[in-house]
């Protein structure tokens, strides 16, 4: 045997003490404390009275499962349905349910319950149970229909007589104060494996500044951070951002009534200096946008220029003035609870004035044009585009080919109406405490705690 070099060993021992610690296996246990700006007053997935937000989606998908899910690469993956089959050219869909799944009240998942849940969310769907399968008949062919089933509003819920919803999710509600607080506990026999966390406590309706303070004081583990304030976080805080999944846009209350009015809408779009607004007001966050869909979703966003073109904007205003002799004054509404919105509205009004337009910023709810944050509803581009188009009264239907070229044409049509002026695509950003491990943000900005765990001091006395 070769003689061993103990001097070398001593040196190596020092070296090994200097290297960074390796990843450890996930640890079970602990309570995660989350704060959100949004306030949920209902935990019913299809409740249309609730504004769609990433916080709502995140919370619903912790308690309720969908039949299928969309992964980070946009592919459909099994969830409560283990398999699915299309027939009649994508008009009839049969999804076979996973066996052995139970709701948090102990009731087994059946096709009848799934059908009832889907009907509640989609009154117009023709859906029925067939043994252990759910069968959905569509009016039109849709080769990408499973992406619809991955939406949080289509999550499967069992409604009891007292109006309480039960889910099959990784967590179930144990405390619920609508609009204020939600406490969730891990579901021990979750079909996809018990989550690592024991409990999640969510405090709702918290201002962004309060959330960051709570994180810094150790009173919260995961908080929301406006993208423009990420740079203000203290150095020890870990920040996570999604793909740009929120659209900041100007939305007109009604369709342009005349070609001249449409030209004025276009002039407004051309007047806005998105680049300098991004630098100054958004502190470099977000992506200037001239499209509804962000480029990561569509792949063609760069074709639409987002740079201001003031000469062209002025020219269009002058042309209109020559025809109708009067440029109307528009009220520009913004959300008074959004600290950034007023600044943005004032800056947009300033840009518009340079082009010859007159905008009056107002925090009143009624306005001719409104600065709006739109959480894109899915990472599936057709679904996201359709939802935004619906806000403007337009209806889209997927082409049979479902090609990028068709998507481009559909978006071009929506934009051509000049009812919506895209401004920026913004990510959803979060800050997490040091012990938070494997906190994952889905491409649509919602968070996924199913594989998250707490390490070190964050685990506290709740661990294992």
């Amino acid at each position: 045997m070769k003689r061993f070099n103990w001097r070398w060993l001593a040196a190596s021992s020092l070296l090994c003490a200097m290297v960074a610690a390796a990843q450890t296996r996930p640890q079970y246990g602990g309570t995660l404390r989350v704060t959100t700006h949004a306030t949920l007053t209902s935990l019913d997935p299809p409740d249309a009275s609730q504004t769609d937000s990433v916080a709502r989606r995140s919370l619903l998908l912790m308690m309720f499962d969908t039949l299928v899910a969309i992964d980070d690469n946009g592919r459909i993956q099994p969830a409560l349905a283990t398999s699915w089959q299309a027939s009649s050219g994508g008009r009839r869909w049969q999804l076979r349910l996973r066996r052995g799944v139970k709701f948090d009240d102990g009731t087994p998942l059946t096709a009848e319950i799934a059908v009832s849940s889907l009907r509640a969310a989609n009154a117009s769907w023709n859906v029925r149970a067939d043994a252990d399968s759910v069968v959905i008949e569509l009016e039109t062919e849709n080769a990408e229909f499973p992406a619809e089933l991955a939406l949080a509003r289509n999550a499967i819920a069992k409604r009891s007589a007292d109006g309480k919803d039960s889910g099959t999710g990784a967590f179930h509600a144990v405390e619920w104060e609508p609009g204020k607080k939600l406490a969730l506990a891990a579901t021990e026999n979750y079909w996809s494996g018990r989550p690592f966390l024991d409990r999640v406590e969510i405090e709702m309706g918290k201002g962004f500044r309060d959330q960051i303070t709570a994180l810094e004081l150790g009173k919260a583990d995961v908080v929301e951070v406006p993208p423009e304030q990420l740079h203000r976080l203290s150095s020890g805080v870990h920040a996570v951002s999604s793909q740009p999944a929120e659209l900041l846009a100007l939305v007109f209350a009604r369709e342009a009534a005349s070609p001249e009015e449409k030209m004025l809408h276009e002039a407004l779009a051309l007047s806005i200096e998105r680049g300098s607004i991004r630098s100054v007001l958004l502190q470099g966050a977000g992506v200037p946008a001239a499209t509804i869909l962000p480029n990561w979703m569509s792949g063609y966003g760069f074709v639409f220029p987002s740079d201001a073109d003031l000469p062209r904007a002025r020219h269009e205003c002058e042309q209109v003035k020559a025809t109708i002799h009067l440029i109307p004054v528009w009220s520009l509404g913004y959300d008074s609870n959004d600290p950034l919105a007023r600044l943005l509205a004032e800056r947009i009004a300033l840009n518009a004035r340079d082009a010859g337009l007159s905008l009056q910023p107002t925090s009143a709810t009624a306005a001719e044009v409104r600065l709006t944050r739109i959480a894109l509803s899915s990472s599936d581009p057709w679904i996201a585009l359709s939802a935004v188009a619906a806000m403007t009264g337009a209806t889209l239907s997927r082409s049979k080919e479902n090609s990028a070229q068709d998507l481009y044409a559909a978006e071009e049509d929506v934009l051509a109406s000049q009812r919506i002026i895209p401004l920026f695509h913004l990510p959803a950003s979060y800050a997490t405490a040091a012990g938070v491990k494997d906190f994952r943000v889905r491409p649509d900005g919602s968070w996924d705690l199913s594989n998250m765990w707490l390490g070190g001091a964050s685990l506290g006395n709740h661990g294992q």
Partner: protein
Amino acid sequence: MRSAVYNSAIPADPLKSFDCPGLVFRLGFVGSLLILILLPGAAISARAADWNAPEQELAHKIVAITGPGVVAFSVENRSSLGQRDHEIIQDGLRSALAGLGLRFAAPEQAAATVKITLSENLTSYLWVAEIHQSAAENTVVMVSAPRPENSGLRNTRESTPLTLRKISLWTQDEPILDVAVLEENPAPAQIAVLDAQRVAIYRLQNGKWQPEQNLSITHANPWPRDLRGRLIPARDHLFDVYLPGVICVSTAAAPLALNCRESDDPWPLVPMGLNAGSVFPSAGMNSAGASVPQMKAFYASTRNFFTGAMTPGVGKFGSVPKFYSAALLPRDRYTLWLFAATDGHIHLIDGVSDQAAKLLWGSNLASVKTACGAGWQVLATTSGDAGDTMRAYEFPDRDPAAVSAAIDLPGEVTTLWTEAKGDAALAVARNRETGSYEAFQLALACGQ
């Protein structure tokens, strides 16, 4: 774009996946031996993608608008494609367009400009052509191109007493829980790969692993997250499978069957090759030449760790702290056990004392018996730039001394078990770039 799909209730059969292009790239063992990772500069080059179909499709779309003639042509890359692919695609598009009657010139001499942007979206590459013809609006046409899969491996080498080598065994998309070498000749000739659904058996034929049989694992309760499992060759049948709350026993001869039952029986910690029940009689003895007594530990059926209850106990300790993994270092009169405990410490237990050390190691440990150095080494993970690194240590007393250079693994180590013979370890790492799980055999070589 995507089309309607049907997923089998049991995820896609890997026996079929061998013939499917675009699925996981699996390494043949002979090929793997040729790219022993420690060789400087060794790397698997990315598979060249075939861009011909989208090139032709886009060229036809462009020419349908421009007609034959003279155009100004440019290609810009805004995607994750590398410079080499960018150039290949640019040349391919140029050829395809020329084949359809387009000629190329500077913008001022051209009837139209064709600006192609190589972009991408969530699911695929997207090549967008913006066509500007005089006195006309821009026309935009586009085609989607599938994203190819790449793989690559990195390596380092240092001058150290022992050399830790890693040999690629197997790669797949689903998490690998364990890989057992069932037959060696002298290189592995038959392996079994354990994942959450099955044990898949492969035989090396003509330098490639060919599937032989898939054995499904049945279980009544859901698997815990961070699922772990062991696949251990047995004396009177082919192998046993240990999973949380489940034990499966194979039959002895082909065609094999696997019988699974609910069980909380303890899992063996001492490799079969090192104890009296060995199926590898020549594999190894302890430093005194005697076999190491078997030690078994109870695994928490709904978690990812051992409960700490041992059978038999470690000396006076009937139980030890809850732990993720264990390694043993036989001494002349006792065995020193190392436990990577859930409290973040490495507990060194010799049967009399329990010493907790903070070593900055990961939670995966394995011991190997070799003819090098002190005869027994412990493999442990530390954090690297692109993933975990693995290193061999000895314990002259109670402090570790590194005896090999750290080798890079392509991502976080998810599995590390001592192989059945006891002279090598099996590591699985999740590749940070591809997301696939790669199993390696880790062996120590003596000297420089």
